[in-house]
């Protein structure tokens, strides 16, 4: 199962997202059909999904999706988790046997709450900081164990295989969610590791990404300043942490976070009015280490909805469509039309300008 | 009209301007041959004047009101209509040296090979005079003031 951890993953190559802004939940069958259309963009070495609103009965608890290579890892993880969390319920993640998915790790989920005595002891940290700390530790220090997602009422389902097969394997047609993200991977290093697939999840954030970030080296070191340690050597991890840093820790609204990650060119900033010029200039000067350079087409899911963003020079494709309260974002229009043959409006994303899907009645972590 | 102006604050006194002028006036136009064979028969149109701490290159000012043209008894000294430069027609010059005597800048000299007046002609035919082109410190400039 183990990937060579010192080879950086190349982000590729198919993404799709479907959400109902009214919060209506629907089965994973649609997203599976959508990503299957883009079969040629992957090479079968990675596929994955994120689903929001799938655990209504445990809505206020952290749903920890954990994969492990062996039982030892499972035991070690459980022990470690119990130090911080009260595990209300846990079970294996249900899967079905299909021919295309041959070998698989142990897949387990825990519904947990942070223990009150832990909250008291670490009174200067937020609950989210504690969860992040635990996740970082499991990923970096517990051998063979990996946390796929750590959000509330959401989950990441991913592994080695074509995305449509992964979706079938995880029985996603049996789940209902208001927001679905999907990703198919075309890695250029040959080993396949279940943890290396997209989406990357941390707290309520789930990120799928197409492209390769040439600023990765500095983004990673910049994040280290703030306590984020990138263990996965993927661009996706860095993007997720940057959103977490900018929006959750620094309190930037989505619009400003995008102005940091996909900042405009100086020549464009100069042409703005004095107030916006001052704002964008200051943002770029302060957050130079967070600028994402290189082609990217990113879908970010969170409890309040989903965001699609292209790099400022628009080197990767991103198509979006609206139909009623449904929002579709994908690498190809065909993937959208597969599940929505005649949308009200279809358009291509503009470089650097986010496409925002917002849950109308949600308690959002992201203020978009 | 463009003229050559010397900036003494940048003149090194190296005399490369004199050398370049000499080569331009030589028959061979090749520096080594010119210096071996023709050095004594050519008079450069430009000459470096040196004092204790100052040097600069001097040549004909191509005056608007030229005393040399006035003084010339044969009409050899004339103004070229295209460039505005004052040129001596060596076929007509008889070597009376009147021009040398009246020139306020001391810019006219006696020819060596033939008995004619010799002076700067702004390198007729070149876009930039060779002394200006060849100054290593750009102490000579060619401009219209």
């Amino acid at each position, binding site marked *: 199962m183990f990937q060579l951890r*010192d*080879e*950086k993953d190349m982000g590729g190559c198919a993404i799709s997202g479907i959400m109902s802004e009214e919060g209506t939940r629907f089965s994973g069958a649609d997203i599976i059909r959508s990503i299957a259309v883009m079969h040629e963009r992957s090479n079968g070495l990675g596929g994955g999904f994120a689903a929001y609103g799938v655990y209504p009965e445990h809505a206020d608890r952290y749903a920890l999706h954990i994969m492990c290579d062996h039982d030892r890892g499972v035991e070690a993880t459980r022990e470690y988790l119990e130090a911080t969390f009260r595990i209300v319920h846990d079970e294996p993640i249900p899967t079905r046997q299909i021919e295309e998915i041959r070998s698989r790790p142990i897949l387990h989920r825990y519904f947990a709450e942070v223990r009150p005595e832990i909250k008291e002891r670490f009174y200067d940290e937020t609950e989210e900081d504690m969860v992040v700390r635990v996740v970082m530790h499991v990923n970096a220090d517990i051998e063979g164990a990996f946390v796929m997602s750590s959000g509330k009422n959401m989950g990441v389902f991913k592994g080695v295989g074509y995305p449509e097969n992964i979706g079938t394997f995880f029985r996603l047609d049996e789940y209902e969610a208001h927001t679905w993200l999907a990703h198919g991977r075309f890695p250029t*290093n040959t080993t396949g590791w279940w943890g290396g697939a997209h989406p990357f999840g941390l707290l309520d954030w789930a990120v799928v990404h197409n492209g390769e970030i040439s600023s*990765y080296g500095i983004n990673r070191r910049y994040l280290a300043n703030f306590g984020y340690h990138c263990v996965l050597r993927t661009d996706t991890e860095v993007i997720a942490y940057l959103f977490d840093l900018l929006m959750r820790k620094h309190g930037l609204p989505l619009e400003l976070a995008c102005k940091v990650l996909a900042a405009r060119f100086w020549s464009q900033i100069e042409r703005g009015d004095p107030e916006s010029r001052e704002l964008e200039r200051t943002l770029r000067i302060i957050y130079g280490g967070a600028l994402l350079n290189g082609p990217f087409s990113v879908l970010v899911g969170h409890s309040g909805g989903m965001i699609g963003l292209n790099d400022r020079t628009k080197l990767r494709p991103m198509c979006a469509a609206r139909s009623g309260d449904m929002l579709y974002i994908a690498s190809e229009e065909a993937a959208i039309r597969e599940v929505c043959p005649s949308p009200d409006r279809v358009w291509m994303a503009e470089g650097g300008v986010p496409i925002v899907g917002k849950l109308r009645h949600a308690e959002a972590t992201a203020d978009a | 009209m463009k003229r050559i102006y010397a900036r003494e604050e940048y003149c*090194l006194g190296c005399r490369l301007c004199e050398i370049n002028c000499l080569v331009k006036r030589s028959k061979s136009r090749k520096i080594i041959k010119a*210096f071996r064979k023709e050095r004594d028969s050519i008079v450069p149109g430009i000459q470096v004047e040196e004092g204790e701490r100052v040097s600069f290159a001097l040549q004909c000012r191509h005056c608007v009101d030229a005393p040399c043209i006035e003084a010339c008894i044969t009409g050899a000294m004339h103004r070229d209509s295209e460039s505005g430069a004052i040129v001596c027609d060596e076929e007509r010059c008889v070597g009376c040296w009147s021009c040398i005597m009246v020139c306020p800048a001391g810019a006219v000299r006696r020819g060596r090979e033939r008995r004619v007046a010799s002076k700067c002609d702004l390198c007729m035919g070149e876009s930039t005079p060779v002394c200006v082109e060849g100054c290593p410190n750009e102490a000579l400039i060619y401009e219209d003031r």
Partner: protein
Amino acid sequence: MRKWLVQPDFVVERDPERCIQCQVCVRQCANDVHSYDPEDELVSSDSATCVGCHRCATLCPTGAISIREAELEFHPNANWTAWTIRNIYKQAESGGVLLTGMGNDRPYVNYWDRMVLNASQVTNPSIDPLREPMELVTYLGRKPDQIEFDRSNGGYSVKTELATQLELQIPVMFSAMSYGSISLNASVALARAAAEAGTFANSGEGGLHRDIYPYSKNMIVQVASGRFGVDVEYLNRAAAVEIKIGQGAKPGIGGHLPAQKVDRAVSETRMIPEGTDALSPAPHHDIYSIEDLRQLIFAIKEVTHYEKPVSVKISAVHNVAAIASGCVRAGADIVAMDGLLGGTGAAPTMIRNNVGIPIAVALAAVDSRLREEGIRNRASLVVAGGFRSSADIVKAIALGADAVYIGTGALVAMGCHLCQKCYTGKCNWGIATQDPYLTKRLNPDVATRRLGNLLRGWALEIKEMLGGMGINAIESLRGNREHLRGVGLSESELEVLGIKPAGVGA
């Protein structure tokens, strides 16, 4: 008494087929190597005093002169090289300290020659700088960790008041070279070229001559241990102030300007008596510990009303990481580091060649250390010490620098031939001299143009390399060590530099 043991370093050869006896060489050599015998009508050369500056060869219209290293060859000896032997002869005859100029000339490993850069292919497109925007703009100064903003009229406005930043159009500045060590024409050319290129020049410790006042907005002035030329107006006139603690060529000792270079104008600008040696003390006599530095930094900030960034320039020595961290915490907005290969107008040879560490490792150590401590944002890092090309600069930025200071490079652009005799005051190129006969040789218009050309050429090359890496903004290269790989470096060197060996993937 003739110094018998000291033999010429160079041999001047004149090709008789090409020499036209024009005497340009005679007029141009300040060391009296060439002379003209009117009786024999012959130009001849006495190599004894030749310093190898190539002035004669460059100006000779027929290219008749060549300069070679002296032919007096010793028995082959890998340990006692000719250079080491000659040094002892000089000291045996003089009893003095060996002096030299410019930067370290010993064959230490040059780390920039052991690092290679990346280019994007297939998985990531490279960017064409001729057709797409490529941004080199760099801001030097203190930056906060996050932004404070307000909501207003459906938009956002910034609340954070950024400390003053120096805006550079290209991440290259001219390093500190004092007026006195170089001529006024050279100083003015550096200032003008910096202003025209949208970057900055450092005045060095010689004070600011009034001919440079028009370019003050592009000047960084130095407060060095000798405090030459320092007064309130000096500090307020410039764009930034730099406290010079040390320089790469001579860590641990102060600046040295020999008396023959202190003429009337230099003495007025520096506020010292004419014709005296300007020897800066080794430490600042008011900085004996880190807290003293903080006191000086804030004294300067008070006097300049907190409107100008204060930089601290240090030599790269063994514990440079700790020192740099201390400087940042003491309030420096910029930390400038000068490495083992840094140049100078005059320094004892032994110190120049043996004291200090290479700037690449110093930079890597400091950048990593500041990030580990979470304070990298508080100060910009500027590095200096033997940067020879745009490639060296790109590698330095990838390693973590915000900008690079060039000294020797700028002088070479103006005509310097690195003969290392700056301390004699007889620079044949008019750069490192105050002799009016020699200073004329550097036409500031020509020098400014050459410096501008150098910066322009380098800017284009940097853009090409950035584009090749798939980057269109320099902040995405800064500190991005993923784009560097080491070649021929040991494991511990790779570790210190924080880079991988070539062959290892992303």
